[in-house]
């Protein structure tokens, strides 16, 4: 286990491994997202209350789940980077931020589009919505803080602290619908007694969620590659790799 961890944390090894993993994640993501989206839009039955309007769920819920998952992933990587002084972990955290921000934006935007016909408003200062907006600001703040600090090591430490402090917002987003009397409906999938939607509605949703996770795998590894190149630009292996091509 430890040797595996140690080997994985070696930048040239990680860079090569990423190269082989990215196409796998990418193709599995496409193989999940394309049929699941089709099934969600065309094959799943219409909702008895929301009609076909409920189909927004197939892009909204996966992006909202990913927005939280990526944040936890980013904060964990930042913590590993802080505790074990592992530079690669910081590189992973940096790679997560723009992806997480984009999916948080997507969750907010599709939620807003869904809210208009169902709640009669694009936006409300509701607990769930506000906490998700704070999540977007955390991602943007993380990126802004890094951009403002020239020294990579100092940027790593400062942004890791911000990422870790921001973790308190994650359970707030998740439990906001149970803690407060929210306009937003409670979770359909993650609740006691199992999901409360029929399989022909649920399976495309699971497919989309898994697909989005694989998509994150592919895109984040691509961004880590870039980050490793920047950080290791004075090393022999990067120079040899770049000049030999």
């Amino acid at each position, binding site marked *: 286990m430890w040797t595996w961890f140690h080997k994985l944390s070696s930048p040239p090894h990680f860079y090569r491994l990423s190269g082989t993993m990215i196409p796998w994640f990418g193709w599995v993501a496409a193989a999940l*997202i394309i049929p699941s*989206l089709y099934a969600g*839009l*065309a094959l799943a039955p*219409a909702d008895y209350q929301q*009609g*076909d*309007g409920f*189909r*927004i769920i197939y*892009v*909204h819920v996966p*992006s909202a789940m990913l927005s939280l998952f990526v944040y936890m992933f980013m904060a964990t990587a930042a913590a590993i980077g802080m505790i074990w002084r592992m530079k690669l972990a910081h590189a992973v955290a940096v790679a997560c931020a*723009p*992806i997480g921000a*984009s*999916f948080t*934006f*997507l969750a907010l*935007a*599709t939620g807003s*589009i*869904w809210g*208009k*016909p169902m709640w009669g408003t694009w936006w409300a200062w509701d607990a769930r919505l506000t906490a998700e907006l704070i999540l977007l600001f955390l991602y943007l703040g993380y990126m802004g803080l890094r951009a403002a600090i020239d020294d990579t090591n100092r940027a790593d430490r400062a942004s890791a602290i911000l990422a870790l402090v921001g973790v308190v917002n994650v359970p707030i987003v998740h439990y906001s619908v149970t803690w407060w009397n929210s306009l937003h409906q409670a979770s359909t999938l993650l609740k006691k007694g199992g999901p409360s939607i029929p399989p022909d509605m649920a399976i495309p949703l699971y497919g989309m969620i898994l697909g989005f996770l694989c*998509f994150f795998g*592919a*895109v984040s590894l*691509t*961004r880590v*590659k*870039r980050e490793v*190149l*920047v950080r290791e*630009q004075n090393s*022999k292996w*990067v*120079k*040899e790799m*770049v*000049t030999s*091509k």
Partner: protein
Amino acid sequence: MNLMEFIDMGGYGAYVWSSVGLALTVLILNVVTARRAVKVELERLKRRYGNEPTQGAS
């Protein structure tokens, strides 16, 4: 189910399709920007190493 019904989405067409369109845009932009970031960095490094005087055997 015919195509017009599919596009109309029971009257929710504008909402459903704009959400789907936005989602696909975010996915595609993520792929494009991430891949371009790697490519730009590799090109920058290539130029940088090319301009450096060779320091013996590296």
